[in-house]
């Protein structure tokens, strides 16, 4: 954390320092380019290629599993936006994931709406709405909320939603809502398998690119400043609370999209999906992979789910303990996650608002 703070401080003046400094850093980075500078696109490309070809080599049941992992990676992305980029500890991210899942399940059950162009936006909007409400309440206000309050508030929200889902007969109580009809486009039904996989992968790539654009924009720069030193950003005249609420809502929308996909893929929703278990699961993914890099969240989800799938056959009882030990080790010795083994500090922080700089160059 401290290290990254230093790096951001170096990066910010480079951006606001005008053309001279900008040109200098460009020279410097061109010289450095050899090993250190371009790891991220390589990692991203490798992951994408691996994901594209996975269904061709995997057996059917593994493709189904891979689809679930991709959906969870999308979910991890939403948490990473909120925690890795804005420093908001959302211990209740599953609230948006699960409520969207429940929402689309109800749409399918009670209104027979399974059209993909209706249910996915609906799920996204449900996630967005809940995140706006909860985030607005927790983050906005006359006094800035403490980090602890936000994290415990989101945790409590998720826990309360879990209890509500368990006790509410309309939502199926303990059993949740079983046998949701598959998603449809016209008369085509998306059932588990390669088509669903590529649909989810396509959505992940789109969302990933949008997020990548977002966190590398000027807005992303403000967020990074917020994460490193909220007070200073407030002194610069940014409305820190508003920035936080916006990114929290965007995170909620992404989680909602993931949740609605998850509901249709699994074919059922159950109370754990809104609860603390899933909320902490997503924290694990992102911490493992590396918070503050989008690809880290994806890699973390793939590794945690993959290893647990592989180990849980033979070592079902020991696996959660191993997971806990690994998590502890990562927190203690690799706070930036596994991605930090290949990714340099400078590249992790990156640069912001490249387009704005070109404009500045063009204008006299």
């Amino acid at each position, binding site marked *: 954390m401290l290290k990254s703070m230093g790096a951001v401080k170096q990066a910010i003046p480079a951006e606001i320092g005008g053309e001279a400094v900008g040109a200098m850093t460009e020279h410097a980075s061109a010289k450095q380019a050899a090993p250190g500078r371009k790891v991220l696109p390589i990692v991203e490309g490798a992951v994408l290629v691996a994901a594209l070809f996975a269904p061709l080599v995997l057996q059917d049941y593994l493709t189904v599993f891979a689809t679930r992992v991709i959906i969870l990676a999308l979910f991890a992305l939403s948490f990473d936006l909120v925690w890795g980029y804005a420093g908001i500890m959302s211990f209740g991210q599953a609230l948006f994931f699960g409520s969207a899942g429940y929402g689309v399940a109800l749409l399918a059950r009670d209104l027979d709406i399974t059209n993909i162009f209706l249910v996915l936006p609906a799920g996204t909007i449900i996630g967005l709405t809940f995140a706006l409400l909860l985030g607005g309440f927790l983050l906005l206000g006359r006094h800035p909320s403490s980090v602890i309050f936000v994290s415990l508030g989101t945790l409590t929200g998720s826990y309360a939603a879990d209890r509500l889902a368990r006790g509410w007969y309309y939502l199926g109580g303990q059993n949740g809502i079983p046998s949701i009809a598959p998603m449809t486009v016209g008369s085509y039904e998306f059932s588990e398998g390669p088509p669903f996989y590529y649909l989810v992968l396509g959505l992940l790539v789109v969302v990933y690119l949008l997020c990548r654009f977002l966190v590398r924009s000027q807005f992303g720069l403000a967020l990074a400043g917020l994460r490193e030193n909220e007070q200073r950003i407030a002194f610069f005249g940014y409305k820190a609370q508003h920035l936080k609420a916006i990114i929290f809502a965007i995170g909620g929308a992404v989680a909602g999209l993931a949740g609605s996909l998850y509901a249709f893929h699994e074919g059922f929703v159950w109370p754990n999906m809104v609860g603390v278990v899933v909320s902490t699961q997503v*924290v694990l993914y992102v*911490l493992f992979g590396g918070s503050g890099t989008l690809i880290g969240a994806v890699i973390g989800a793939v590794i945690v789910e993959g290893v647990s799938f592989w180990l849980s056959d033979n070592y079902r009882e020991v696996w*959660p*303990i191993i997971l806990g030990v690994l998590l502890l080790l990562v927190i203690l010795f690799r706070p930036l996650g596994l991605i930090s083994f290949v990714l340099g500090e400078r590249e992790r922080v990156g640069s912001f608002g490249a387009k704005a700089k070109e404009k500045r160059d063009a204008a006299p």
Partner: protein
Amino acid sequence: MANAFVAAFEILSFGAIIVLIVLGLGIIASMMGIFNFAQGEFVLLGAYITYLAYAKGLPIWAGMVAAPFVVGALGFVLEALIIRRFYAAPIVAMLGTYALGLIIRESVRGLIGGFYLTVPEPIGGSIDIGAMHISAWRFTIIVITALVMGGCYLLLARTSFGLRVRATLENPSLARASGISTPLIYGATFAFGAALAGLAGALIVPVFSLFADLGLRFLIQGFVAVMVGGVGSFIGPVAGAGLIGTLSAALPWVMAPVVADVLVFVLAIVFIKFRPQGLIAGKGV
């Protein structure tokens, strides 16, 4: 009348249980600034040790007495090895203690399996007052909670150890300069908080029976109680725990349990939002 009395007793005994669990959590949060996610698992460990003593044929009392010492010792070791690294960053502390809790919880789950194991009450039967019967063990819990609460207060407010703890809380560098070994104090405080959790686990296991998610059930309630009461003092979390415990036991008598369950949390969060310093603000005891 009899019903009202039974209801009042139920509410009181549940409130006492929550207070007992929150005591340790509150001391660690207030004195060290750490929200210990492993606290629920310390409760679980206390319960497990009691069960172990019972399963080995020892008197249950022996297990209940041993539990706080064993858990306290474990807390001391964990503080020295791991928790100590987290003081600078409260969020990292949350994640780290969560990982610790995960390890403890899953280890216990591996040991007991997915079962609900019952431990009999060391003091069985009921106390009869006229036509009303109240559980003797629950009554004992209330008494022990009151004693422990008084003991903690005296320890923090009246002894030189308590003075050192408070000094370390208020101004660590000045405390260090005055010759107080702050790492030792932190270690002792954490061990003490863990021991209280162990005691709570030992006492409640006859009521709730032993299962791996026992601690998790109380953890969030505990956090909310600490926040409602106010971090930074001893009495704040206790007051918060009393309030939350009473509310969550009392509301189901007047409305649907599902609604009551959720309502307590919503009310608590709204309360904290508009009064972030909690019921009882300020530092000290």
